[in-house]
């Protein structure tokens, strides 16, 4: 196990290195840069400002030099660079924004568990009965309906019908109740697909366990059904939960781009959208590398947890 973790840890920087190169090259391939945005993008006649911004960003250097400077700053000084658009250091921005995105993400995972486990369990226990079909229908619905579409409906309809908004403007924890109201809606929407997936996996896992020999033996011993399910079926079925929760951590980051834009949450997602519009390469690169690192670490943790909770798994 230890050697597996070491191997995986060693793979992270290599993977990140490849990601940085891909991100760097792709960003340079997109038409327009921060110099054009900042200086008005009016043809080729804004040389002074254009050159100044490009120099400030190091865009006047060769691609190799630009990459080396950027990557070495991150590796040696943990410095993600300076945004010419917001005039802020990425490092000082990244903390609060990760926290804002993280709050929504954590809450969405809580919702995922609260939706997925009970729905999956009931569906398995009452397999083949109307309630099973009903819950499975809603699980498929949760997977099929895009959350950004639901988000738009949730934004618009209360305003049209009752003249109010379900998610007010961002206030932070100075006003805890309003803050929870703000993050609860996007978190719930983000959790729907994960909750539906989890419900389906919990259901199939439990059905598999319910048909096991040891469950039949438990019943034969005369144990009550509640004890059989609660003690012998539930626990081994929960292994899948770790995979889903781990994946949900990663999906939250992707989903945050749209949800934060719709609900105006000043997190990583909204940041990256603004950065793309402003061709703020430094921010985009920093955020993508951060997302990638996050994903790699979470995947490793999930794999380790997986082996830990299931003795049958050996690396």
């Amino acid at each position, binding site marked *: 196990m230890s050697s597996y973790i070491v191997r995986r840890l060693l793979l992270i920087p290599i993977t990140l290195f490849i990601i940085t190169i891909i991100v760097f090259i792709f960003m340079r391939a997109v038409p327009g840069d921060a110099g054009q945005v*900042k*200086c008005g993008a*009016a043809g*080729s006649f804004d040389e002074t*400002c254009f050159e100044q911004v490009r120099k400030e960003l190091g865009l006047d250097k060769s691609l190799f030099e630009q990459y080396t400077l950027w990557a070495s700053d991150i590796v040696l000084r943990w410095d993600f660079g300076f945004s010419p658009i917001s005039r802020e250091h990425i490092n000082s921005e990244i903390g609060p924004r990760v926290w804002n995105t993280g709050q929504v993400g954590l809450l969405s995972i809580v919702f995922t568990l609260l939706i997925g486990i009970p729905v999956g369990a009931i569906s398995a226990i009452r397999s083949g009965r109307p309630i099973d079909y009903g819950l499975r229908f809603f699980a498929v619905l949760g997977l099929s309906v895009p959350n950004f579409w639901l988000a738009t409906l949730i934004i618009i309809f209360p305003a049209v019908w009752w*003249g109010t908004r379900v998610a*007010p403007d961002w206030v932070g924890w100075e006003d805890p109740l309003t803050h929870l109201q703000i993050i609860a809606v996007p978190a719930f929407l983000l959790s729907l697909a994960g909750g539906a997936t989890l419900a389906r996996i919990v259901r199939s896992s439990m059905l598999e366990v319910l048909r096991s020999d040891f469950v039949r033996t438990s019943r034969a011993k005369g144990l009550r059904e509640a004890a059989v399910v609660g003690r012998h079926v539930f626990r081994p079925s929960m292994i899948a939960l770790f995979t889903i929760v781990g994946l949900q951590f990663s999906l939250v980051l992707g989903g945050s781009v749209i949800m934060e834009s719709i609900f105006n949450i000043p997190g990583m997602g909204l940041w990256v959208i603004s950065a793309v519009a402003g061709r703020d390469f430094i921010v985009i690169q920093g955020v993508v590398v951060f997302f990638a690192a996050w994903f790699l670490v979470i995947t490793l943790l999930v794999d380790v947890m997986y082996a830990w909770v299931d003795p049958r798994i050996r690396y």
Partner: protein
Amino acid sequence: MAEGYWGKYWRRRVSRRRVLAGGAAVGAGAAALVAVGCGDDDDDDDAEPAAATQAAQATEAAAEATEAAAAAEEAEATEAAAAAEAEATEAPSAIQRGGTFRHQKSSQNTSLDPSVTVTDPTWTALTYSHLLGYSLVEEEAWGDAATGWEQPDATTLVFSLEDGLKFNPEAAGGRDMTSEDVAFSYSRFPTSLSELGSEVNQLQWGWMGVDRGASFDTPDATTLTINLAFPWASAIPSLGSSAMAIVAREAVEAGGGHLKDTPNAGGGAYMFDNIDDTGNTYKRNPNYRGHSSDRGRFTAEMPYIDRWEDAIVTDPSAREARLLAGDSDVLGGIDKIQAELFANEGNVQVIEGPANDHAIMELDGFKWAQHPLLREALSLSIDWEAYIDVVLDGEGIRGAPVGPAFSQVLPQDEIRELQQFDPARAKALWAQGGGDEVFPDGFVTVIATFGASTRHIEFIAQSIEENLGVPTRLEPADLANYVALATAPAGQKIWHYFIAGENSLSTIPDYNALTHYVPNGYGAIFGGVYTFDHPLSAAYPEEIIEVTNEIGTELQARYDLQGATVDPEERKQVLQDLQRYIFTNFCCVLPLPVPSVQYYAMGARLRNVPGVPDIANNASMGYRRAQNMWIEA
């Protein structure tokens, strides 16, 4: 080492079994909760129909009651609105001072310099004084920094300035603002174009001829004389543009020759309080003294509103929800369907009036100038009346190079005669002009990914393909490269035609769509129609300019003639002849049909909102500069 209450838990080894048991317990608990909620689902079969019937009856009754209440409410609301309006109109004492105007927009602006930016330029207008403001609705100019003006001859304008004008405390230490500051501010434009990449159209300032012999006299601090290089019939309305802001020389110098990053460089009624990626806030300028008298929408006393906010809200649905919920005072231009939907919303007022939009189909002059038959074929292939039905929901009129609000515009019947839809003739001309050889790969156009609607572009592309047999590839562009694609240097444009529209600067007939046809307007930078006389012609090889020089010179000459024709009747004739010339030569812009009515969604609590088309116009007294607008608490 002392450990707290939680320490023992941190140190305790957690077993795999315990974790699973915990997970199972949480899951079971949650399942029980859901089961309780779902339980007892097979005992109420008999009760259900009765309940359903009762519910249906209750719903019907409720619906009736709601309708009655709604009708009563509507009647009351209408009466109340009428009463409030009458009160506001008749009794100035009803004006309420204070409050915050809550604006919202999709993205932060790229420059703070009023001589550079055209991306929502009205946002900086709050922080600057201007010589005057102009209302297209009232067809009248009102003095802002100027108390009055006279025009002794065709090329001389003399302005008297208010006494005691000051910059805000952060601009030049809050010193007095003088006529020299006005002269300095207007003199910046040529440099802003050549060195700062200004997006401000040259027609907004080029008429003064600062770079062609015009001069400014400042005999004293409150007198300014502008000696134009040539007569300009629209001089006074042109000075109303928000780009004509009065800036402090010291602020420009401190900014390295520009104000792109300098927030407070003027002496307007407000100054920036904060600017960041969530938006901007504005507070009152403590040095601002108001005006010596009420002049149109300028007030003698302080403007009524205390503060302004610009919230950056990227999602359009979120912006709409904010307005509907009463959390914002502006949504912006809306279409007819939205206007109908918003009509009964308590937090919204829909401002409606005759539109003065223009929309154009810009052809890349470099590609089209030498192919008159193909230009005509292209125009004949577009079903203009169907465009009005499909794109404008039937609420539109035929567009012309002069905006529909101006008396100089050609009559609709004549436009229909000049701009026809005739697919058979279009195909014949296309074949005669060798269209398939000239454009073997079809056309490319740009489609904005940030626009509210792309119906108009898709309609045109489809119409051309159906009636001319030439496909169009739609090249998507976001805000960052949209302008860059539009203004790419001559010979490097990827598009064959570019569909654009704006109603941002439509107070003068010389501007509006007309500016896109002439080399010294958008015609060169956008349309690629350069002439050898054009200030930027030196940037291009002779063989490129040769392609468009002939027709560009003719267009520019006709345009200059109308600008120099001060007599209104004579000017109307010149302008109408110019429009006919453009329609019959199809170069290099095809005017598109435009809406006949414009709708604007604003917060219901606002009073004295400027009418359409002034409302959001950067050249006129839109809501950003209407000091007599107020908020009802």
